[in-house]
């Protein structure tokens, strides 16, 4: 379980996060939505322990997230396209194995097979779709408590997106692993999600069960997002 308590973070005079509070339960798959610049990446980085907050705290299973804790229990995948351009996927996986005690080469190779990843070509020479898959394999190779994925689908074609969705279902355990991902491709990803949290003006503007939204909001998730942004209020009457 991840608890975020009143987290703030500014960049110069711009306040990216302005008191974010949220709880993400164990075993859930959560989509983090919001416009560009709404603070999704910043929040993920803080949850992953790779960036500090100005104030507030983030707890993983009750303990404050530190770099060390994060390194052994949180698998973070950054949005950056080129991780280690001169590595092949095989080299990337060996590097991950050397860095993270929870990395399982067996699981990673199985995921690489499942996602049909080219393991012998340098990452910089792979297509964007192949690199996206290599990155996810390197991340899923870990047996972390939480996977934090920054835009895992961005810029990928629908077939690759679908493969990654399936890989996420296949290689994460809903009994004990939490997955939080920021995404723009809500439509493709919606069937994968248990919950959606929407960031707006540096705060969580809404956080709901996706199945509840489908039930209560005519037009579904797309209408929910639209309402949230246009009217700036509660998107729908929550089911009681």
């Amino acid at each position: 379980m991840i608890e975020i308590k009143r987290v703030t973070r500014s960049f110069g005079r711009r306040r990216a996060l302005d008191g974010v509070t949220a709880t993400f339960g164990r075993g859930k798959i959560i989509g983090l939505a919001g416009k560009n610049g709404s603070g999704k990446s910043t929040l993920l980085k803080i949850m992953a322990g790779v960036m500090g907050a100005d104030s507030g705290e983030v707890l993983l299973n009750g303990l404050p997230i530190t770099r060390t804790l994060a390194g052994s229990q949180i698998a973070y995948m950054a949005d950056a396209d080129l991780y280690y351009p001169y590595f092949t996927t095989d080299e990337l996986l060996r590097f991950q194995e050397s860095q993270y005690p929870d990395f399982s080469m067996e699981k990673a190779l199985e995921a690489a097979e499942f996602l049909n990843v080219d393991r012998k070509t340098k990452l910089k020479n792979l297509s964007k779709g192949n690199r996206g898959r290599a990155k996810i394999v390197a991340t899923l190779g870990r047996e972390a408590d939480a996977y934090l994925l920054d835009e895992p689908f961005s810029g990928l074609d629908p077939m690759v997106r679908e493969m990654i969705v399936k890989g996420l279902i296949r290689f994460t355990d809903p009994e004990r692993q939490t997955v939080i991902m920021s995404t723009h491709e809500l439509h493709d990803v919606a069937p994968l999600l248990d919950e959606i949290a929407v960031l707006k003006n540096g705060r969580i503007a809404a956080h709901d069960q996706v199945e509840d939204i489908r039930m209560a909001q005519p037009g579904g998730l797309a209408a929910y997002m639209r309402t949230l942004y246009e009217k700036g209020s509660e998107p729908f009457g929550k089911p009681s």
Partner: protein
Amino acid sequence: MSFDFLPDKPIYQQLIDRITGDLIRGILQPGEKLPSVREYAVEAGVNANTMQRVYKELEGMGITETKRGQGTFVTENAERLGQLREEKKAQLIDDFIRDIEALGFTEEEIAESMRRRER
């Protein structure tokens, strides 16, 4: 291929409709083994928690049975399956009647048109 889903109906409900539909069409046979929750979730491209709920509801409906250590199977209870067929039919008719009433057609008018269509 992942399945396509309507945006404003719960996914677990759509999956139940799909599986019971496959049963009525005979694509799925009495006594047949269903994939594991995880396998089916991957195939459909849905969350494993959602699929778990689908399996639980189907079992609650008496459509499937879980055999310990073996997996989930479609029931061989012919009476229950016959009943399911009737339930689906009633549901289709209810939906249809709601649609035509919403547009202001009368039942007589529709019945007449359907008889003519048969010929």
